[in-house]
């Protein structure tokens, strides 16, 4: 469902993020239940219980195990498309570019970066890799369509893109379900093991006749002493007093339970971590913002960059925004395509680039945004105190009359002094109007 939804009134991104949320809820719920079971296990240590009717437990455990194994196979099969390609990632990603018909440049750092992934980031990798595989298919079919022009000619998209878009952001949640099923299977194994051992080795107290149960000493103390006195009283019948079977068996249950809880938590933790990182709008692990920033800065025609944001919507959809400061619109045309390519190479395909043209006379304002929200709405901006934003207390040009209440941001003193020397920001509305631009990006 979440895959197929599109932008709606309530959610401009569609419901693509629902998978990540689902995975998080899954993981948190599982953690909470594990915690409950942990408490229960601790209680069992202090007050061990026998397993009543071990045969029934064995039967149910085996049935559960069979069902879980079936489920495991089912989900494993579904998820194998992603998992299987984890190692082929670097290879397939490099192949993408010639196929897609763009300039045949090798993404410089990508190959190396692709290989240094750890297990937990395979989710993102799987997405790109499975898309890489599918894009090879695409590339074959669209080889004759020229993709060199970046303006997407509203061309025909082949219909099998439908199935190609088995996007692996779904895999995040499917992996959550997979983990559940796996944990269940393991749990069933433990149940069966425990019950078998108990059945085989436990020497229960028979219902009739005196019985001494040395293991249970909290609540049954009175029973124990009673049977002890009985035993002492009838020494001749001492052989007939049965002693309830090896005590360590009673502790097997909680111990195995603890082991299982640990395993469950261990397998859940990567999922939890990854979905949390996505939801926190962090930069995906494989992207280095600093190097991206420097790559963009070194482009000619780019004077400065600010408000660079990269975040992951879900799965392989990474979104980037940036404000690029250029000297004038004509250079922007030339450089915009290169910018998009740089983003593309990093795997960021949905970008919004805002060009800003340096206003005449503000040479010192290299680093700051030419088009911030008009007055000091800084606290409500996403990044009010970014690296190169400034604080100005009262700068309201008369022509720009948006009323916004003033907010003072606390800045360290260095920033304050810097800000006072920067002239006010004005939107430069009268640049050269003679230039006509026919080309499109």
């Amino acid at each position, binding site marked *: 469902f979440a895959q197929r939804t*599109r*932008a*709606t009134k*309530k959610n401009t991104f*569609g*419901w*693509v993020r629902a998978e990540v949320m689902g995975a*998080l809820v899954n993981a*948190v*719920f599982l953690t*909470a239940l594990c915690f*409950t079971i942990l*408490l229960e296990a601790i209680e069992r240590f202090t007050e061990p219980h026998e397993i009543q009717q071990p045969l029934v437990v064995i039967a149910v455990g085996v049935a559960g195990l069979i069902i879980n194994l079936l489920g495991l196979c089912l989900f494993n099969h579904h998820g194998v498309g992603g998992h299987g390609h984890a190692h082929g990632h670097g290879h397939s990603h490099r192949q993408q570019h010639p196929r*897609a018909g763009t300039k045949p440049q090798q993404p410089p750092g990508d190959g190396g970066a692709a290989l240094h992934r750890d297990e937990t980031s395979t989710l993102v990798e799987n*997405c790109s890799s499975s898309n890489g595989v*599918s894009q090879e298919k*695409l590339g074959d079919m*669209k080889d004759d369509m020229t*993709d060199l022009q*970046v*303006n*997407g000619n*509203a061309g*025909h*998209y082949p219909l099998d*893109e439908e199935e190609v878009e088995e996007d692996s952001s779904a895999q995040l949640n499917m992996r959550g379900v997979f983990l559940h099923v796996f944990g269940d299977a393991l749990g069933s194994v433990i149940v069966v093991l425990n019950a078998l051992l108990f059945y085989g080795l436990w020497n229960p107290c028979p219902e009739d006749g005196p019985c001494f149960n040395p293991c249970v000493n909290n609540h049954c103390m009175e029973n124990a002493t009673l049977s002890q006195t009985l035993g002492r009283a009838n020494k001749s019948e001492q052989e007939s007093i049965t002693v309830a079977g090896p005590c360590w068996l009673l502790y097997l249950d909680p111990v195995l339970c603890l082991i299982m809880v640990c395993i469950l938590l261990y397998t859940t933790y990567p999922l939890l971590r990854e979905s949390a990182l996505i*939801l*926190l*709008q962090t*930069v995906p692990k494989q992207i*280095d913002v600093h190097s991206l920033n420097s790559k963009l800065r070194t482009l000619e025609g780019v004077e400065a960059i600010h408000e660079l*944001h990269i975040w992951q919507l879900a799965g392989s959809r990474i979104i980037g*925004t*940036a404000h690029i400061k250029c000297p004038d619109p004509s250079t922007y045309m030339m450089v*915009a395509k290169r910018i*998009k390519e740089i983003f593309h190479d990093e795997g960021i395909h*949905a*970008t*919004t*680039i*805002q060009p800003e043209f340096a206003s005449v006379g503000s040479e010192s304002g290299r680093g700051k945004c030419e*088009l911030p*929200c008009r007055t000091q709405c800084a*606290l*409500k*901006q*996403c*990044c009010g105190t970014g*690296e190169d934003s400034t604080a100005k207390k009262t700068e309201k040009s008369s022509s*720009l009359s*948006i009323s916004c*209440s*003033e907010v*003072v941001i606390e800045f360290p003193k260095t920033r304050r002094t810097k800000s006072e020397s920067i002239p006010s920001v004005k*939107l430069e*509305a009268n*640049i050269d109007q003679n230039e006509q*631009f026919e080309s*499109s*990006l």
Partner: protein
Amino acid sequence: MGRYSGRSSRLILMCVVSLVIFAVEISVAYVGNSLSLASDAFAVLSHLISMIIGLFGVRFSRIRWHKASTFGFSRADVLGAFGNSVFATALMFSIFVEAIKRFINPQKTEKVLLVLIIGISGLFFNVLNYVIFMDCCYCRAPPGDAETGDSPNDQKSPEEGSVKKKVKKSEALNIRGVLLHVMGDALGSVVVVVTATIFYVRPLGDAACNWQCYIDPSLTIIMVLIILSSAFPLIKETSTILLQMVPKGVNMQVLTDRLTCVPGVKSLHEVHVWELASGKNIATLHIKCQTPTDYQDAAYKIREIFHEAGVHSVTIQPEYVDHRTSQLLCSSPCISKACDSQLCCSQREPTRAKTNGCMQKNNSCISAGHKDNGSSKSDIEIPIEDPAAEDSVKKCDISDDKSQASSTRL
């Protein structure tokens, strides 16, 4: 970062106290076989976790930029509140299951006096926590941040009443989460005391369970329901933010209508508005315009419109059109169409693009602009073949129609 005033040390103190209370309560609950005490212990635990998350969340959200996250960690307390609510829900669920088991298999509460004492002391500590918490985090004048308890003297401008409220609101989300749990604790302790008192006053001894044994699970279930009913709104609110939904105060319909009326904008697409954390809205959009001058003029007005809608971080990408390109599809989605599946919103699906349907001459905005819903089958189409509008609407040639296989129609 370290401004350790009384607030965070109080929070830490409360955390330690809660931990101790939890340990004591859970052990007595097992000894005394009292379910309501166990549920109260769980409630204390989730309260504790929410305080810890609150502590870390507020700390984290002060980080503005980090190489791991270009937005800083201001979402941390939203995520923390969400995770905490889900955790509490799960714990309550397990208590619920236990209560059902007790209905089927009723058990008496033993060691009633001990349970009663612990229950009363739990109630006392909960009220104490509540008082401390209210005092330190809520009743003080709202500062710039929740943790350090700045006094109002630090604020410079007097006309900040509304801003103060909004700043307060942005931290209130996680503080609300904590508050929620505190209330639940108090309720839980009351339930424990009631149950234990009944058993104390009318002891059962070794007799079989009578009606008294059913009080414990019933009151527990009521308590679970109450706590869940206050956790769900918090879940709902935080998931609005986490799912990147349009923030509540923003009406996309109205907004896009106003945006298309901006002169110079021929059409717009890929309009996204979302909320980073409480109060911080972010928007991105692509506009198509004819010349850079158009863009510059339009950009200012667009920002103004967004500003009035409450969105203060806007990134506008201009795309310059010529006759060949379609009006509605993005001119620069990525460098090639092959990236389509990795775009945030697939380009080949009918987009929610809008054309500028404003009649320039009349200064009135007949929005003959046209948008497509995602579900192409049930398109709500505003028929644009309105002869009056057609002349003045700047539209692309109809010849572009045939190149668009999808239902993006002008």
